[in-house]
């Protein structure tokens, strides 16, 4: 599971570390399928990924994914963006499956269980957990409490809840108590490792 929407919130340094670490035959859950040659695109280019679960692989600069997909070297599970987000949240919140109206009657509903609820047709969608989540946040404390920066928040808070091991890269670690309890977005209970990636601060 890799956070980010395009490059906002993408944990580039953690992905670089994953490339260095060498794990292979990965299944990646992420909204996009990489941009240009860095981050997730670099992981794809290194042929470490067997399958990607995402909502929007095709972008103007997704040529690495495009090439692998056309060559049949990567599997794709295409999920509507809101269903992707909700399946990730469900995994974190102990919900086994849910009924959603999104996608009913479309190609993406093929093979899925349907049910009319309150007069409206729904599809059954299942929780989508991960072994590891790599996310990017703004600041952390020693308990792993996190706050994010602007729209880089996107998938971070829900992915943090849905993985057995969540690793967050942040711009800085502050003293315990320095983050206002009212404004913490991801409580530390969901975060297992915090890494400072100074170069990762986007501004």
């Amino acid at each position, binding site marked *: 599971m890799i956070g980010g929407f395009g490059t906002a919130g993408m944990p580039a340094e953690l992905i670089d570390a994953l490339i260095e670490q060498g794990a292979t035959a990965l299944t990646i859950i992420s909204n996009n399928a990489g941009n240009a040659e860095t981050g997730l695109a670099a992981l794809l280019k290194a042929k470490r990924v067997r399958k990607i679960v995402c909502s929007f692989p095709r972008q103007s600069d997704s040529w690495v994914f495009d090439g692998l997909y056309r060559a049949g070297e990567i599997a794709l599970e295409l999920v509507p963006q809101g269903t992707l987000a*909700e399946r990730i949240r469900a995994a974190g919140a102990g919900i086994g499956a849910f009924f959603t109206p999104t996608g009913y009657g479309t190609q993406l509903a093929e093979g899925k269980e349907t049910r009319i609820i309150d007069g409206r047709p729904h599809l059954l969608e299942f929780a989508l957990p991960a072994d590891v989540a790599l996310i990017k946040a703004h600041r952390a404390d020693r308990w792993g409490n996190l706050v994010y920066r602007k729209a880089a928040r996107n998938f971070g808070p829900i992915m943090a809840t849905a993985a057995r091991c969540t690793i967050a890269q942040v711009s800085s670690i502050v003293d315990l108590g320095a983050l206002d309890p009212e404004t913490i977005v991801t409580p530390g209970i969901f975060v297992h490792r915090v890494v400072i990636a100074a170069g990762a601060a986007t501004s």
Partner: protein
Amino acid sequence: MTRWTRDEMASRVARDIPEGAYVNLGIGLPTLVANHFSKDREVILHSENGILGVGPSPAVGTEDPDLINASKEPVTLVKGAAFFHHADSFGMMRGGHLDVCVLGAFQVSVAGDLANWHTGQLDAIPAVGGAMDLASGAKQVFVMMEHLTRNGESKIVERCTYPLTCAACVNRIYTDLAVMNVTSEGLEVIDMCSGVSLDELKRVSGTSRMFGRAG
């Protein structure tokens, strides 16, 4: 045949969105609508990557890579804006809280079926993003598109040949030739570009399921 320009279309859509509405403008043509809201009308723009209160494009040199819209273009905030995560953002969309979404389309059927995510070509890489969530979730779905493809084929169809985004979800269609409401009897034409007749519109659209406003 005279046609409305893209800005004329956008201006017309903007005029039809009421004060105080929460609105999502889809990728492409619909983004133009943002430039046409009257200064004295407060419309609050949603971006599915977790923003309510999206403002205009930033001045060159002040872009922030963490402050982008769903098209991944840099934006700004207006006063009153809020950030939230993706599950909350799509809960907002799916839960019927957005008053209007304006979407581009490949095809719209006279029954309001929408096809806007996939041309169905075998070598195309499919990408759906938030299109299905928006189409099935907003209180009103407006489509904004050219009436005809570059090859002169009508994008208004009796039945979509491209894969559906959502069945029977479109409420109103804005093209460069006309504005039409989707009704159970077919498309009610509520406005036409000057010089275009209803008969001509039916002819280029290849459908008879189109009628003028009653009364």
